[in-house]
C-alpha cells in the first residue's frame, strides 16, 4: 500500500461510494468463508439434520401418547411426520446450496479486495 500521498477528497468520496455499493449488493467475498469451508460445513449439517427431525417428531409423538393415552398412534403418526420434516430440512439445505457449473467460482468480482 503506497500511502505516501494523501488522497484527495474526491477520490476518497469515490472510494466510499464504491465500498457502500459493495456493502449493499452483498458482493465482496472478502470476509466470507471459502468454498471448501462451506462444503465441509454443509457435510456436517446434513447428517445431523436428518436425525434431528426424526427425533423431534418421535419425541412429540411420545409426549402426545403420554398426555392423551393414545398409545401407539401418536408416536406412529408423529414419527412419520418427523421423518418427512427431516427430509424436507435436508432438501432445503441442499437446494439452498446452488451448485455452480463445474468449478466456476461464484464470486467473479473484479479484484477489488484490498481492504
Amino acid at each position, binding site marked *: 500500500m503506497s500511502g505516501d500521498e494523501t488522497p484527495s477528497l474526491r477520490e476518497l468520496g469515490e472510494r466510499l461510494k464504491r465500498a457502500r455499493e459493495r*456493502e449493499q449488493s452483498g458482493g*465482496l*467475498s472478502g*470476509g466470507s*468463508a471459502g468454498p471448501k*469451508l462451506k462444503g465441509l460445513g454443509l457435510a456436517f*449439517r446434513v447428517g445431523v439434520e436428518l436425525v434431528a*427431525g426424526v427425533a423431534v417428531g418421535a419425541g412429540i409423538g411420545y409426549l402426545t401418547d403420554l398426555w392423551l393415552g393414545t398409545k401407539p398412534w401418536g408416536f406412529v403418526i408423529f414419527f412419520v*411426520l418427523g421423518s418427512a420434516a427431516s427430509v424436507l430440512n435436508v432438501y432445503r439445505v441442499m437446494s439452498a446450496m446452488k451448485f455452480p457449473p463445474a468449478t466456476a467460482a461464484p464470486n467473479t468480482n473484479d479484484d477489488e479486495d484490498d481492504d
Partner: protein
Amino acid sequence: MASPLRQFQIEPIVPIKIGNVDISFTNSSLLMVIAVISVSAFLMLGMRRHALVPGRFQSLAEISYEFVAGMIRDNVGSAGREFFPYIFSLFMFVLFGNLLGLLPYSFTFTSHIIVTAALALTVFIGVTIVGVVKHGFHFLSFFVPKGVPVALMPLMIPIEIISYLSRPVSLSIRLFANMMAGHTMLKVFAGFILTLGLLGGWAPLAMDVALIGFEVLVAFLQAYVFTVLTCLYLNDALNLH
C-alpha cells in the same frame, strides 16, 4: 487407565448450594470464564494500538470481525447488521470454547449438550421473538408453505412446524456431538500409545497428531456452522422465506 470419557466429568471447584439447587462453580464454569476473558483480551489487546497498518494481533482481531461481518452480510443482508454484536459474541465464545478445550488438562464445555442446548435455545427463542416482533401475526405464514394445494395443508403444516422445532435440536446436537466424538477419539488413541509401548506405540501417536490437526479444523468449522445457521435462521425470521 482412565476412561476416555473421564475428561467430560464435571467437577465442582467452589461448591455453592442454594436450597436444593446446585450452582457450584465447576471446571466447566471456569473454562467459560476463561473463554470470555481471553476473547476480551484478544480483542482489546489486539485493538489497543489501532494502527493504520495492523500488527499481528490487530489483524487477527480484524479478520475475525470481517469474517463474522461478511457472514451476516452474505446470509442476512444489511437488515442483520444490528444483530452483529450478538452473533459475533456467539461465534467467539463457541470458537474459544472449542479451541481452549484442545489444550491439555483443560475442559471442553461445548462437549456438553446442556451448554450447546442453552446456546441453541437462546438463538431459537430470540429469533422467534424477532420474527414475531417484526411481522406480528403474519409470522405464522412462515408455517404455510407456498404453492401447496389446500388439500395437503393439514399434512404440510405439522411437517413445517416439526421442521421448525427441530432447529434448536440439530443446532445443539451438531456442536456437542462433534466436540465429544473428537475428544473421545483422541483419548482412545492416546490410551493405546502407552499400552502398545515402544514397539507399536508410534502408530496411535501418529494418529493422534493427525487427529489434533483435524480437531483444530473441527473447532473452527463447528463455530462457523453454528454461527452461519444462526444467521440463516435470523434471515428466515426477518424476511419470511
